[in-house]
């Protein structure tokens, strides 16, 4: 048990160290987020009433896209230089090591994204109920995005058609999370309770935590065969 | 029901017949595509086999 925890923390800290050596890359998803949010007023004109109504949706969709973009590199460098084979051969459960990588990824991108998203919500004067709902849905939702996305990334790592295929695979899987989050925010705005949606998101989170790394590990093994 | 009534479908004729027509097209296209693929593969494999035999 102690060695499993050691293996987890070694991979986790390795990923964090590698990522923090290249801080510019860490900032990319956040800058992308802000740039895309800024695009919306250009597209919809400065009709503040309309923008106010779509703010929560804007934030969530942009967070989703930023998460997808940042996920792409999660396995790529390891696949290219052979570290993935080393991880498979290491004797530790690949599921555990994959879980460590995904957790590192979420801490490096999902958490900062959440912070930026909340700040954006405050700046765009989202009402407090909606802000609360947004926070909770992001808290439950972004790990789900990382976990489910990792499966699709593992399936398509190193392929020619890479990025586009990845988006095509990931976005249908992300849609339920998006749907339930937006329903929660809408209900919060209308003053209705959001327990049901939060339970569903929590359920998806638990399902992804338990089964996601297993599926990701299988996908990596299949790609390496 | 007369043929006229049948085609008219109580005013919804356009919708009903478009749906049935699309369904027919999709189903038939699937069959045609599957059969032509089967034939193409048989042809290609036979040709490849002939080439291999003639090279021997």
């Amino acid at each position, binding site marked *: 048990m102690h060695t499993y925890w050691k293996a987890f923390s070694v991979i986790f800290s390795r990923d964090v160290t590698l990522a923090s050596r290249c801080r510019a890359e860490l900032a990319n998803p956040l800058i992308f987020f802000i740039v895309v949010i800024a695009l919306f007023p250009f597209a919809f004109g400065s009709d503040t009433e309309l923008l106010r109504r779509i703010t929560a949706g804007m934030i969530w969709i942009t967070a989703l896209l930023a998460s997808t973009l940042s996920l792409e590199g999660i396995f790529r460098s390891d696949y290219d230089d052979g570290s993935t084979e080393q991880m498979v051969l290491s004797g530790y459960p690949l599921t555990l090591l994959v879980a460590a990588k995904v957790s590192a990824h979420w801490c490096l991108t999902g958490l900062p994204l959440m912070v930026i998203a909340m700040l954006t919500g405050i700046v765009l004067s989202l009402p407090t109920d909606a802000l609360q709902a947004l926070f909770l849905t992001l808290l439950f939702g972004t790990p789900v995005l990382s976990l*489910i996305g990792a*499966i*699709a990334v593992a*399936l*398509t790592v190193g*392929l*020619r*058609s890479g990025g586009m*295929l990845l988006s*095509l*695979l990931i*976005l*249908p*899987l992300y*849609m*339920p999370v998006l*749907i339930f989050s937006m329903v929660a925010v809408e209900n919060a705005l209308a003053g209705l309770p959001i327990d049901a949606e939060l339970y569903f998101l929590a359920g998806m989170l638990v*399902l992804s935590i338990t089964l996601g790394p297993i*599926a990701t590990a*299988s*996908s990596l093994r*299949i*790609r390496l*065969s | *029901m007369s043929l006229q009534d*049948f085609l008219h*479908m*109580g*005013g*919804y*004729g356009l*919708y*009903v017949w*478009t*749906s*049935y027509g*699309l*369904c027919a097209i*999709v*189903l038939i296209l*699937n*069959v045609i595509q*599957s*059969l032509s*693929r*089967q034939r193409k*593969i*048989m042809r290609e*494999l*036979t040709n*490849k*086999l002939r080439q291999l035999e003639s090279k021997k």
Partner: protein
Amino acid sequence: MIFQRFYRFASPQHFYHLAVLLTPWFAWATIILMIVGLYGGLVFAPADYQQGESFRIIYIHVPSAWMSLFVYVLMAVFGGIGLIWHVKIADVLAKSCAPLGASFTLLALVTGSIWGKPMWGTWWVWDARLTSELILLFLYLGYMALQSAFDDRRVAARASAILALVGMVNIPIIHYSVEWWSTLHQGPTVSKFDAPSIHINMLIPLLIMALAFKTYFASVLLIRARSEILEYECNSNWVRELLTKTD
């Protein structure tokens, strides 16, 4: 004992010959059932008192929707069998299911949209069931895209199997969406335990059409599977014998 009899059909060669044998039966069954079902649906069934004649679209819309779900589950099951037990036939069948499933989903969406126009006054509405059916279409398309992205067949089959299994989460969402969210789409017409909320004269053609769609699916699946098997096994002896025999 019975299991052993079926076991030999896991071999591509035996399955191929079985497929050749079964296809005409399924094809004829499809034609007969379609004719009976269409007659029943278009002529025999009485017009709905609320929706008039436009409700007849149900006879293609509902079977397509049922098939779109059924084929996806089948695709995932075949993929799972191929993944776990390394059965080539399962991989072949899963790959062959995908275009058919996508066609049925597209049909369900389009016929539903056409039906919705006179009924609800709009071509599209962001309703729970429609949205999740659309997600299903994207899942099928993603599956087919993933299959074609790999050069190695076995890797393609296993990767797609994982994708199909992960996407299974969507199926209960589609099925129960009309119960969980009270939205525009009507509730389930046929449920297992209650008496169906539909007149028996309207129900029978629906069930016949559903069966017709199933036999149609079976016959086209077998044709596609045959093509796949030939490609897969093109270097083996039995294929060579087969090709030289048909020359």
